[in-house]
């Protein structure tokens, strides 16, 4: 356990180095958020009927998305591991006395949590505290409606990070089968962004598609935690949310472990 913890801390510290890039990222994310918020406002203002989520909930959902997208959307596999696989240096990782899947999973976990500090916290601070001060209360991120909602969000968010890391692992391991990895690495993020609610909040999707969207693993990444935060989903549904996340985490980890095992057994280290 201590080995994994040291690895996590080391990776985490390394990833925290990219501060300037993160600052630029925060500004970019804010801009993006504003465009999304204005588009949603324009859609909401002319509609007389009630929608499955209020404009303010939708705005909160967008800001949470901007704050956490780098962290919890599995955009790509661990590029360094993929490079190791391509170059054959993965042989060193095979020699370590630790379980390969756990070893890589720890790295994925660090990859997903470092952006929380660098991008998540600044963006949350700006959208929760600064916006109301500068007269953008309508467009700010509101606090969760109750303490229970906040706790539910935190718990489901931990589930989301684990789920995202498990999915990251699938992408990383896909490199063992395709040499360039470009195919899966460019198609997968597109699927994740739409089905997780990153492009349009899932409650705004057509009613008929909701059972499918809710069942897919991707709704556990952003949609469910964010709805708990904004109050769109009541805290008493936390149990179902966690169950859904745990179910998918177990399945994806088992699949990932299987793929790593198969991959290693057929792995040919090229060159010397």
């Amino acid at each position, binding site marked *: 356990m201590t080995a994994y913890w040291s690895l996590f801390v080391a990776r985490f510290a390394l990833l925290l180095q990219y501060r300037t890039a993160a600052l630029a990222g925060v*500004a970019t994310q804010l801009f*993006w958020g504003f465009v999304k918020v204005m588009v949603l406002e324009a859609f909401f203002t002319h509609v007389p009927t009630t929608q499955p989520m209020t404009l303010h909930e939708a705005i909160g959902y967008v800001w949470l998305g901007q704050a956490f997208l780098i962290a919890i959307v599995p955009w790509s596999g661990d590029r360094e591991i993929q490079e190791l696989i391509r170059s054959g240096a993965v042989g060193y990782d095979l020699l370590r006395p630790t379980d390969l899947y756990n070893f890589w999973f720890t790295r994925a976990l660090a990859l997903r949590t470092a952006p929380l500090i660098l991008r998540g916290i600044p963006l949350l601070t700006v959208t929760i505290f600064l916006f109301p001060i500068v007269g953008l209360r309508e467009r700010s991120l509101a606090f969760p409606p109750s303490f229970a909602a906040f706790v539910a969000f935190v718990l489901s968010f931990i589930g989301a990070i684990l789920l995202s890391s498990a999915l990251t692992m699938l992408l990383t391991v896909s490199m063992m089968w395709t040499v360039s990895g470009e195919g899966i690495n460019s198609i997968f993020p597109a699927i994740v*962004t739409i089905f997780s609610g990153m*492009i349009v909040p899932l409650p705004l999707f057509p009613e008929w598609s909701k059972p499918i969207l809710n069942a897919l693993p991707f709704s556990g990444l952003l949609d469910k935690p964010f709805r708990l935060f904004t109050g769109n989903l009541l805290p008493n549904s936390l149990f179902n949310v966690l169950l859904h996340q745990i179910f998918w985490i177990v399945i994806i980890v088992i699949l990932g472990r299987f793929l790593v095992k198969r991959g290693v057994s057929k792995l040919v280290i090229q060159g010397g």
Partner: protein
Amino acid sequence: MNNFLLYFRYISVSFKSQMQYKVSFLLQVLGQLLGTIIEFLGIWVLFSRFDTIGTWKLSEVALFYGLINISFAFADALGKGFDSFAKIIRNGDFDRLLLRPRTTVLQLLGTEFTLKRIGRFSQGIVVMAWSLSTLHIPFTLETLWLLGTSFIGGVALFVGIVIIQATLTFWTIESLEIMNILTYGGVETAQYPLSIYSKWFQRFFTFLIPLGCVSYFPMLAVLEKEDNFAVPLWFCYVSPIAGILFLIVALQLWKIGERYYCSTGS
């Protein structure tokens, strides 16, 4: 050999090299295509719930969407050399370009014509065609002029933006992610009519970065909506020129940057 011919030589070499790995190329095009299709799916989802955005229908918004995407895809394919300029500066490759008896702009534009952008481009064309046929917009000379100048102005504007982005590298050595606001952010913005946004935002994308001039205003004339927004008709016909003016300004900045350049020595 004149510059134009030379440019085509560059491009044909670049095409050949990109077609070397056909499967990888196809997968990338597919990935691009899927990415943009999903973007449009997002717009469709919102329309299926809300029906209209302000006074605009989906078929009208599709015109804005299609147009900005083909302009951007083309400019993005063209400007690859400027896009990876930070790397060129860092390994000192720029010194090599300076030694050659051609302008650096030509050489950088010729670095690579990124073919995989065809995914976004073709999707933009399809969406635009759908919009034009659903709205029964006749193919008159006026329409062709508006669409054509819009496209050219849009390409010029986006190429101008990547040139400015690259110019900044002369001072920072680092490429700045924040400039993505103007490229990808610009595309995202111009996928909807400018009138739905806040006033300050509209002004920013009209006067500072003339994105509205190359897409919003000419499309108002195509959709015959200029009266609703109190824009004189003649302005819709000439506004795309702003994109070309922007490119000219960008090229001037590039020249200034080049004079300032001193090698990193790598």
